[in-house]
Structure formats: structure tokens, C-alpha cells
């Protein structure tokens, strides 16, 4: 009797420990290298932290007051939002078109899927450098915009204040096409063929089927793609740092470039304060997008 109780107790102890033993390695890394630094950055945002000394005085909201008075911060914030507004529609629609193309029962679509996915596995630095070469004045795009009559001489779009942010967003979109295509593809495969067959019988065209069936049925995937675009789009770094470096005259200085420059000046408290704004944007934007999509989904059901 006594024995039985002990073994039962031991078993219970083991059952308590087991899940945490499984979680331990990953959780230790996440706590040490994500959670701790994240909370530290919250703390630094209200300190006057000196990286070299490893200490700082409490300054309250001074860092936030500083960035809110810094015109470069507002420019960076605007650029980040404009960048998202440029990338979002392209990220939502282009991969959707790609997915519905390669979802056809046609010979060789597997190869096309692969071709569309290659930019995803390409290192971002390589993507930025390749596009940088295409954009140079004597490069393909630099000359193309001249030949199309958009500019009166060969022009590097990355060097023009008016077009630099758009030129950068093209690189971001190009890199992500295949990734978002795969998300749509799994969404598409959950739509039953019967709906399309019924539409075929009614004589619907490819375009009609795309806008009347595919797009509405893909609402959950659109939400996922939008949220990921917002979270990833706010973090964009390489394609700006390695092509324009934030220029010309701040035209591509996004919030991340602003934070990076502050960090390089060892002004880590200002960087942390701006980082918190970045976090709020990421969380807020995602929640907003989910809410919009939810109401749309309900409209669809109702």
C-alpha cells in the first residue's frame, strides 16, 4: 500500500517535469536571447544608457520626447508607412496570381513553382546587389526607364528622391513572391474543384473565376499574407542599407534605418525608444488587418 502511494507520487512528479524537460533547451535560448534583451530594450528606452559604461540614469520619457521632436524620425516613420502601402497590394495580388497559375493542371507547373520560389532562397544581400546592378544608369532598368520615355536620360531609380522607395519595394516584393505564393497555394488547395466546375458549366472565364471565386475564398490567406507583410515589411533592412543606405536625402530612411543609425552612433536609448514605436506599429498594424479581414469574412458568410 505504502509502496504504491510512493510510486504514484513519483510518477506525478515525473509527469510534472517531463513537459518542462522537453521545453528546456528552446525556452532557455528564447528567454536568454529574446525575452531578456527585449525587456532590457524597454528599460533602456527610459534610461540614458551608455553602452560602453554599461549603465545609465533614469530620464523618464525624454528619449521619446527627443524622437518626437526629431524631424528625421517623422520622415522615417512616414517612409516606413509609405513603404508598407507600396508593398502590401503587390504582396497580396502578385503571389495570388502566381498561385492560381501554378495551381492549374498543366504540364510543367512544378518547374514554374520552382522558378518563382528561387528568389526566396536567395540571400537578401545577393538580391540587393543584383537589383542594384540592374538599377544603375547603364543597367537594364536604368536604360529601360529612358527607352520607355519615363525619363529623358538613363536614370537610376534608387538615386531619385521620388522613386527610391518604390525601387526598393520592388526588391522586397521580388524576394517574397514565391513565399507568399506557397501560402496561397495551400489556401487554394482547400477550395473544392466542384465550385470551379460549376462555374465552368455556367461559362465563367478565367478572369471571372479569379475575382468571383478565388479571391473571396482566399480571405484567410490574404489575412496571413497581410499580417506577415506588415511584420516583415517594417523590418526591411538589407535592400535599403545595401542599395541606397537611406538616401537620397533621407528618401529611403525607414524606421529601421533610423534605429540602425542611432545604434551605430551608440545612442542606444534613442534607438530603443524608436524600437518601441516600431513594435507598436507591427502589433497595431497586424491587429488592424486581422480585424478588417474578420469583418470581411463575416460579410461573406452573412
Amino acid at each position, binding site marked *: 500500500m505504502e509502496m504504491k502511494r510512493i510510486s504514484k507520487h513519483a510518477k506525478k512528479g515525473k*509527469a*510534472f517535469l*517531463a*513537459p518542462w524537460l*522537453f*521545453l*528546456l533547451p*528552446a*525556452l532557455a*535560448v*528564447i528567454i536568454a*536571447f*529574446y525575452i*531578456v*534583451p*527585449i525587456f*532590457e530594450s524597454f528599460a533602456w528606452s527610459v534610461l540614458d544608457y551608455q*553602452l560602453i559604461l554599461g549603465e545609465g540614469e533614469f530620464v523618464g520619457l525624454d528619449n521619446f520626447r527627443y524622437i518626437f521632436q526629431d524631424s528625421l524620425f517623422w520622415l522615417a516613420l512616414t517612409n516606413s508607412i509609405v513603404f508598407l502601402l507600396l508593398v502590401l497590394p503587390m504582396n497580396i495580388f502578385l503571389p495570388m*496570381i*502566381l498561385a492560381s*497559375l*501554378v495551381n492549374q493542371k*498543366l504540364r510543367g*507547373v*512544378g518547374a514554374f513553382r520552382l*522558378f*518563382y*520560389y*528561387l*528568389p*526566396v*532562397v*536567395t*540571400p*537578401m*544581400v*545577393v538580391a540587393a*546587389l*543584383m537589383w*542594384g*546592378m*540592374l538599377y*544603375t544608369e547603364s543597367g537594364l532598368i536604368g536604360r529601360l526607364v529612358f527607352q520607355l520615355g519615363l525619363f529623358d536620360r538613363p536614370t537610376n531609380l534608387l538615386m531619385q528622391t521620388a522613386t527610391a522607395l518604390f525601387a526598393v519595394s520592388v526588391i522586397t516584393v521580388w524576394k517574397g*513572391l514565391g513565399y507568399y505564393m506557397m*501560402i496561397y*497555394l*495551400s*489556401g487554394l*488547395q482547400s477550395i473544392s474543384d466542384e465550385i470551379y466546375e460549376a462555374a465552368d458549366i455556367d461559362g465563367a472565364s478565367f478572369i471571372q473565376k479569379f475575382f468571383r471565386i478565388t479571391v473571396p475564398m482566399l480571405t484567410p490567406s490574404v489575412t496571413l499574407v497581410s499580417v506577415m507583410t506588415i*511584420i516583415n515589411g517594417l*523590418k526591411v*533592412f538589407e535592400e535599403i542599407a*545595401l542599395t541606397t543606405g537611406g538616401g537620397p536625402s533621407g528618401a529611403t530612411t525607414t524606421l*529601421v534605418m533610423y534605429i*540602425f543609425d542611432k*545604434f551605430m552612433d551608440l545612442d542606444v536609448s534613442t534607438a530603443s525608444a524608436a*524600437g*518601441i514605436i516600431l*513594435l507598436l506599429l*507591427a502589433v497595431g498594424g497586424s491587429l488592424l488587418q486581422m480585424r478588417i479581414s474578420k469583418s470581411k469574412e463575416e460579410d461573406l458568410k452573412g
Partner: protein
Amino acid sequence: MKNKKRIKTLLIYLIMLFFTVITIGPFIFTLLISLKGAQEGIFTTVLPQDPTLSNYVDAFRGANFGAFLLNTAIATGLAVPLNILFCSLAAYPLARMDFRGKTLALTVIISTMAVPFQLFMAPLFQLTGDLGLRNSYLGLIVLQVGTAFGIFLVRQAYLTIPKALEESAYIDGANIFQVWFRVVLPMIKPTLITLGIYTFTFTWGDYLWPLLNTTNSDMYTLSIGLAQLSQSFSGANMKLISAASLMTTIPSIFIFIWLQRYFVGTTSGAVKG
């Protein structure tokens, strides 16, 4: 009717081809530039007049490409197995067990996904310095092992497999660890390989964190080395950069093509190959 269908098919192929030009085009242009000799202008003609591999050789000789390649390979070689192991361990109790703190653990892990790296890169930089991880391989991969994304991905895979097999293994006397390793893991092989591909791609191409954590040029990864090369975007350099860029990309592409048939999408539904 049949003719109409044929035209439609042709049209679809043409559109697909158009997008292929967009996604593959930059690689082709880079390849053509990389094959041009020292005397040739980069943009004088599209095709190289006298194709040569000298830029590829120069990347190894002059630009220290070999050392960067080795560093990147070591970091990636560490990150991939560790991330697969840590994530598949952590995801198991989150999918299968009931315990106090489960919801909290899951929430904490998933919420780190929404936090931009640039928020906490400065404290992380100080932390890795204090821990002696600066200029080390482990320092390069601290954010790549036990990732929230990986845990989420593997947990979704666990949730799709039936419990019956595990239950019968318990009846046969296996302990929880054996069940996980012998019964459950083999069933989610495609997801583990998918996670491996993601981890490989990410670590191989990671730039900002290696840039911050590496101060010694002997520890440069390919991405940093390439970025350094591109600081002077002059004519001669552009051919070298092109060659080095393509060599940097080839392992990623090769791994993806090799393991493609196991690749599943990011959402729970498997994508037919």
C-alpha cells in the same frame, strides 16, 4: 471549343513565362556579367564577348571567398540540426501534454515572432559581448536555434497526427522520450526537413546580426563579405561581386531543389509537390 481551350492554355503559359523572366531574370544578368573578362565593359554588350571564369577564381584568390564560405558553412551546419532538435522537443508538450503554464509558455514563444529584431539588437549585442560570444560561431546563431517559428511549425505537424500510435507504444512500455523519438518524430519528417530548409536559408543569408556581432574580418560570413566588397561598386568589382553572389546563392538553391519533394508550406496544410 477545343481551339479556344488551346489558346487559353497558351495564354496561361505565356503569363507564367513572363513571371519567370521577372523572377529568374536578375540571376541571368548577374551570370552574364560574372562571365565577362577584365577588358570588357560591363554593360557594353549583353552577352560576354569572350566568356571567362576568371572572376570566380579571383573571388577565392583575392577576396577571401573561401574563408567566408567556411564560416557560413560552419554556422549553418550548427544551426540546422540544433534548431530541428530544440523545436521538435519544445513543440511536443505544447501539442500533446496538459500542464500548468502551457498557455503562458505558448503565448510567450509565439509573441516573440511579432517583435522586430531591431528593437532588441543593442541589448543583445551587449549580452553576447558579456557572454564571450562575440566573433564566435555560436554567437552568430543564437537567434536561429529554438525559434518560435520552428516550434509553431512543428507543433502544427504534431497536431495533425493521430494519437492512437503513441498510446499503443505506451502500452508496450515505452517511456515518453522513446515515444517522441521513435514513434512521433519519424511521422513528421517532411515538416522537420522543411524547418531545416528554412533554417538553412535564413542562417546562410543572415546579414544584420552577423554584421553586428562580428568585428574580426576572419569571422566574416558570405553576406558580410559580399557587402564589404560592394562598398566600392566600381566596374572591375561588379564582375567579382556577380561571381561571388552567384556562388553564395548556389548552395541554398541546391539544398532547396534537392529536398523540394519534402517541402511543405508554412500553414498546416501540406502542399502537394
